[in-house]
């Protein structure tokens, strides 16, 4: 095996006939690093090849076209990406934090003895060494770290860079087949299930009253429900509230739930973990109630209060009910 060259490889995903937002962010981040290192930017696209032409900024895009049609398999993703890494020997590989990134990064770092940083929100190159900033402890701390001068992998948090503008440009596309891989998989390509339709539409609401684990117990939800009812709006929630079975899945905001952009997002007892912020940071106005003054939610909120939600919510109900 030869050592890495100066190229940067980005893992791209297509959703609904276009490159995903995070893919465009990775191209933007990758382009900067590739320029500093003086190497090419290579995209590896999982999905339709017509989208490959929109990966402007990449010098080459390697497509695994059948991925989009035959379903997802973590093992297939690892095998396909390993083949591209082996062939191209990039200096840096960028993948999005999410199922694909989690499936790929650790495994590839072991297979290629690459230095891996997770939850990356920034990258730079200093005298040929790659440095990353990672967001840890649910967004409470940042770590600057050195990824050395060998092959490095960064698993990047969505929303960490400004997406490069879409367009059609000079992108060299080469297609690769998965035929040779598919037959021997222990984990077969999966059958995709879209989210269940439900009566509640938290995406359409102009105001959301959102509740997190700070509510403490299912029985306490009533307190916040009363406020949502008084305002005539749906209640949304962070993942732990859903996982505990306190509210059904269609109410979940975040990475694995819905992305919402209401005029006002009013949150109670939500810490503001990156996976939650991914789903609501584009709200016009964010108001956060959290007893911990260091809670990361205050980094994105426009208005904040450290009052106990159980003291605040009843006062709000009283005001709304008049």
């Amino acid at each position: 095996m030869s050592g890495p060259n100066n190229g940067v490889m980005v893992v791209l995903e297509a959703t609904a006939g276009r490159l995903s937002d995070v893919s465009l962010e990775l191209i933007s981040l990758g382009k900067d690093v590739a320029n500093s290192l003086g190497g090419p930017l290579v995209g590896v696209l999982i999905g339709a090849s017509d989208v490959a032409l929109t990966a402007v900024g990449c010098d080459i895009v390697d497509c695994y076209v059948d991925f989009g049609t035959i379903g997802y398999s973590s093992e297939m993703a690892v095998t396909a990406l390993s083949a591209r890494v082996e062939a191209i020997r990039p200096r840096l590989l960028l993948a999005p934090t999410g199922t694909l990134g989690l499936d790929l990064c650790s495994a590839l770092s072991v297979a290629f003895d690459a230095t891996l940083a997770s939850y990356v929100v920034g990258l730079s190159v200093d005298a040929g060494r790659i440095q990353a900033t990672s967001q840890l402890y649910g967004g409470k701390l940042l770590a600057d770290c050195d990824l050395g001068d060998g092959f490095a992998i960064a698993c990047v948090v969505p929303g960490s860079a400004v997406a490069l503008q879409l367009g059609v440009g000079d992108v060299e596309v080469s297609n690769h087949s998965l035929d040779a891989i598919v037959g021997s998989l222990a984990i077969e390509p999966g059958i995709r299930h879209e989210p269940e339709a439900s009566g509640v539409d938290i995406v359409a609401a102009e105001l959301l009253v959102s509740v997190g684990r700070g509510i403490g117990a299912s029985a306490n939800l009533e307190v916040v429900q009363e406020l949502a009812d008084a305002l005539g709006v749906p209640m949304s929630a962070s993942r732990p509230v859903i996982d505990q079975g306190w509210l059904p899945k269609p109410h979940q905001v975040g990475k694995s739930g819905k992305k919402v952009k209401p005029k006002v997002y009013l949150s109670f007892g939500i810490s503001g973990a990156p996976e939650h912020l991914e789903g609501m940071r584009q709200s016009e106005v964010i108001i956060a109630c959290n007893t911990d003054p260091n809670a990361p939610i205050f980094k994105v909120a426009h208005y904040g209060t450290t009052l106990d939600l159980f003291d605040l919510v009843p006062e709000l109900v009283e005001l709304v009910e008049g």
Partner: protein
Amino acid sequence: MNIIVAMRQLADLVEELEVDSSGTDIDREFVKFVSNEWDEAALEEALCLKEAYGGTVTVVGIEEVDFHQTLHAALAKGADRAVELTGDFEGWIPTRQRAAALAWFIRECDFDLVLTGVQAADDLNGQLAGAIGAMLGVAHASVVTNISVEGSEAHITQELGGGVTSVSRARLPLVLGVQSARQAPRYVPISRIRQVMAEATIEKVPVTGESFGNTPQVLRLYAPEASGTATMLEGKPKEVASAIYDVLVAKGVAGSRKGN
């Protein structure tokens, strides 16, 4: 069905986290440690699988502050075996090192499934499932929310984001990073944990010098600058409620107050 669950303790995020004098790690002296919540989900799924198909659940992790609490609670909930890997483990342990120790132990076990939490909040160096899978040469998948087993096959559900899920048929053995179990982790009374502490044994297995390869070098750990975008609303609950209500009215999402 023999299931191995890799678990650990980790700083409680609800606590204030201070950076120590080295500037590259949290101050581990005063912080409260708790079980990683995703490992608890992995344990719950393992216990549900054991109840459905029989077999054993072995809980394993490396020697760290308060890890016995995790092991005792797991035994109290129904795990069959609790193993602590001892050795040169200090401070902030890279995932690769953790995975190397766990893979070394797991390799010698007879297992169908290895379950662990999808992530931990201090996973600077990647997530465990993929690393253990690659080290063992066993297929792995992350963000798993459901597992069912038929003979030597499993059906695993992975979340792909935005509410989309994917269900794959897979051949055992597998290493899976669990996002959530089919039900919320079970509760076990303190009295039961106390009883286990008095009766059960934790097997200690020394790990020596497993090499684990390249990991990032932390240069600086710090709290993000308060970007200062949030206007903090001070005052009594009534006053803060009133200020919030004014914002709702100004944005046109709540009616103006009675009498206005």
